[in-house]
């Protein structure tokens, strides 16, 4: 059977394979190469070794964006996961209207980042109007604005995944524990949490990478203001590329560093939480 399918390579695999080369492999490989070049377009690239990489940290903007992004990621990962888990715990109990609540909390997730950014700009600037300021007044305002937006968008999504995880905990384990007389806190800490560890792995992974790679919301909500101080890494890279002539190589080198950081986070996070999962 394998051999008769094999002959059909051009029909089954080739279209995806070609598109994958055009859409991913070629741009990725060229991206790596161009990070070692000086260029303004693909055809005029000149090899210059590691010069782009040494320039990355020369102006401090990348370092600032790196810290700003890291702080943003840590804060959002913790808040989103804690609140989403708490809501999921409550909404798996029998509460009137719980399906409506689930529907409402999940909804913001379907709205795109650009649209979300402008929706929240209106609301947050309206609130800040009371103290005579706007989001672009300082990077701290922008930071918390982004945190609030991100929570609003992601809590519902993570809640759905946690609810699925909690509903998967076998009822007989819960009953056995209740017969043994464990209290609510022990039930949560020793039984529910270890059993939903796979959901926690997925949710921390998703929130980590979503926050770290955030672009659209940042562009729409603060646009980096004031003077690039509320710029996350992705926006910083984008602006190095398209905002400064002659800096394309540095932009590409920044993108490579960005990719390596994301890859390390993804692998490390996966190892760390997978180790805590229990066999079900």
């Amino acid at each position, binding site marked *: *059977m*394998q051999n*008769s*399918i094999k002959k*059909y390579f051009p*029909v*089954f*695999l080739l*279209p*995806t*394979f070609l*598109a*994958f080369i*055009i*859409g*991913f*492999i070629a*741009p*990725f490989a*060229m*991206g790596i190469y*161009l990070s070692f070049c000086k260029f303004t377009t693909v055809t005029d690239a000149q090899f210059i070794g590691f010069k782009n990489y040494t320039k990355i940290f020369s102006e401090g903007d990348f370092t600032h964006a790196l810290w700003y992004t890291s702080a943003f990621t840590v804060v959002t990962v913790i808040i989103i996961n804690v609140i989403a888990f708490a809501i999921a715990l409550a909404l798996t*109990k*029998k*509460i*009137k*209207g719980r399906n*409506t*609540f689930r529907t409402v909390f999940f*909804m913001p*997730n*379907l*709205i*795109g980042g*650009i*649209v979300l950014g*402008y929706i929240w700009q*209106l*609301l947050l*600037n309206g609130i800040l*109007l009371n103290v005579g300021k706007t989001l672009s007044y300082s990077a701290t305002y922008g930071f918390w604005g982004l945190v609030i937006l991100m929570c609003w968008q992601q809590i519902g999504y993570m809640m759905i995944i946690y609810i699925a995880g*909690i509903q998967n*905990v076998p009822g007989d384990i819960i009953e056995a524990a209740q017969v043994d007389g464990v209290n609510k806190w022990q039930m949560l800490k020793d039984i529910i949490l270890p059993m939903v560890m*796979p959901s926690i792995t*997925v*949710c921390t*992974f998703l929130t980590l*990478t979503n926050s770290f*790679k955030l*672009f659209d919301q940042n562009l*729409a909500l603060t646009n980096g203001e004031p003077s690039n101080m509320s710029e996350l890494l992705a926006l910083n890279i*984008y602006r190095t*590329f398209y905002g400064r002539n002659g800096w394309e190589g540095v*932009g*590409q080198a920044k*993108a490579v560093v*960005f*990719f390596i950081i*994301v*890859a390390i986070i993804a692998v490390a996070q996966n190892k760390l939480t997978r180790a805590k999962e229990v066999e079900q």
Partner: protein
Amino acid sequence: MNEEKEVKGGIFFTIGFALLSLVWVFPIILVFINSFKKKVYISRQPFSIPTDNMFVKFENYVNGIEKTGLISAFGTSLFITIFSVIFIIVCTSMAAWYIIRVRNKFTSMFYYLCLFSMIVPFQMVMFTLSKIANMLHLSNPVGIILIYLGFGAGLSVFMFTGFVKSIPLEMEEAAMIDGCTPLQTFFKIVFPVMKPTAVSVAILQAMWIWNDYLLPYLVLDLKKYKTIPIAVQYLKGGYGAVDMGAMMAVLVIAVIPIVIFYLVCQKYIIAGVISGAVKG
């Protein structure tokens, strides 16, 4: 767990969550209210109800649609999303089946490259990808479909292969012995069983493509084509103060179809998110 027992003090939970739900939808309602307000009042009095001289009927909508070319942007977004998703589903499900049924070095290498592509941030390939798209004349709504297939192949191939692994071989073997070609076998036997996974993939990819901003912004020829996120961001564009009235109207038009789509297909969307998360 405890599904049948009504929670103690359940009514307080219901009231608490009802209030929280109101907070959750408030930003969207605020934008809706402001879309009927004279534009000079939007930034100054975002929380007041538009009455008398503030109320402008549909003026903002007419303005917003005219300024951004929103109608044609809507068509472009719809076209790109629908056909990309169809193309992705058909091509990657076939590819996934081929990868699992024909095991050799090439298919397993392709599989691991797909996994790898899932952690690469878009900034890494954005410059080179947009140049390649230009060179191959893919800067139009038809060409971008190929780009989406290539850049979106990772997750789809991953989800489909996960499912194909669980399909027993017997049915396919029987079909082939009865004289079915691999193509007939795939579309008559394999694809129908894959439907739940196909729906999940379709939902996840549609959410991504419909809301995507940066990829179409860099790839499409913006003089001719805009998608909805691009049209929204276009209002912010270089020329002076933003027309807040038009902005509010455009945001409302961007959100309404998504909310309707969500309320109609809620069951599938949530199931799609859960199965995507479990496998991701």
